[in-house]
């Protein structure tokens, strides 16, 4: 844990923009992750799996809400970011841009994308930003169950029939580059957050993630050390190029319920 507490009033404009970018990438990714889990409330391999997906979707949206609320510290209105942005402004990890085509992709995302998010959150919780120190540990405690489910299902599919294993490996290989690019971002805003003690250095974050998931991914024949981060980096949003599909963003914004918002 960082010794000093970040003084927000001492952050310059670049520092504030960097913290905003970090928080929005986390919050948007959590929101999109929740939507992707929610697609599997029905159609998951069993009723219990569907219930777990429903619960995880709710967890992710709860985490997103807590993360968006941190933006108040930067004098930003979370409601505007939650409900009034176009898809092209979303900063969620690129691996969440499209719905998952099959259960193997859901499982791969649980390990790769949810895993990368938890890796960044662990770093955030141990850093100098007081709101993260206070709020993120509860998220990580809830994520412990996501991680358990992810690892168990990943092992199960990796040792299943060739078709399941192939789908799992393919989804994993596709999701890793954008996730690694985000987790290992080392551009100026990312480095500003390291300098301020908000998160650990990019190399340490990546090393921890690769160490956490390496053995598991190897069971599907994926060598995480050999996968290179995506290079189509969009520094303004802190993610790779592209955007979530319009339908998911409409759900994320709550377009159909605008008249009913109770905030």
């Amino acid at each position: 844990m960082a010794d000093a507490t970040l003084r927000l009033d001492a952050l310059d404009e670049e520092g504030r923009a960097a913290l905003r970018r970090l928080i929005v990438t986390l919050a948007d990714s959590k929101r999109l992750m929740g939507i992707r889990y929610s697609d599997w409330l029905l159609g998951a391999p069993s009723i219990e799996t569907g219930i777990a997906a429903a619960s995880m979707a709710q967890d992710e949206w709860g985490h997103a809400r807590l993360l968006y609320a941190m933006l108040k510290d930067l004098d930003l209105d979370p409601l505007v970011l939650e409900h009034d942005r176009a898809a092209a402004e979303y900063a969620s990890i690129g691996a969440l841009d499209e719905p998952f085509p099959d259960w193997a992709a859901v499982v791969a995302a649980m390990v790769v994308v949810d895993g990368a998010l938890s890796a960044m959150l662990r770093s955030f919780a141990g850093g100098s930003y007081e709101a993260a120190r206070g709020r993120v540990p509860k998220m990580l405690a809830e994520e412990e169950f996501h991680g358990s489910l992810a690892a168990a299902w990943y092992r199960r599919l990796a040792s299943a029939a060739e078709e399941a294993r192939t789908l799992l490996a393919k989804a994993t290989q596709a999701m890793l580059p954008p996730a690694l690019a985000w987790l290992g971002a080392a551009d100026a805003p990312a480095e500003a957050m390291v300098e301020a003690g908000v998160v650990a250095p990019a190399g340490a974050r990546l090393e921890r993630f690769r160490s956490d998931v390496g053995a598991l991914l190897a069971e599907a024949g994926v060598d995480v050390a050999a996968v290179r981060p995506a290079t189509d980096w969009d520094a303004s949003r802190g993610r790779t190029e592209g955007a979530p599909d319009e339908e998911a963003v409409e759900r994320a914004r709550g377009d159909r319920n605008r008249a009913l918002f109770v905030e």
Partner: protein
Amino acid sequence: MREILYDVFARKNRGDALAHIGYVDAIDDEIARVYAWKTYDEEHWFEMCIVPRSAIIPVNRQEGLFARGRGRG
């Protein structure tokens, strides 16, 4: 994939008796842990545990809910 039947027990407070609150079907212990926690999340449980039904040995009622052989796996 073959599933195993697990019974779920929980208590709300330290000192309470563990109560049977339901069951889940899962393909292994680790997945069953998560299913139980996520399915029976209506309370803030102090403790929850799961037991494969096949491990429960009936004492006085051989044909009851926990009769031998009712749990798969």
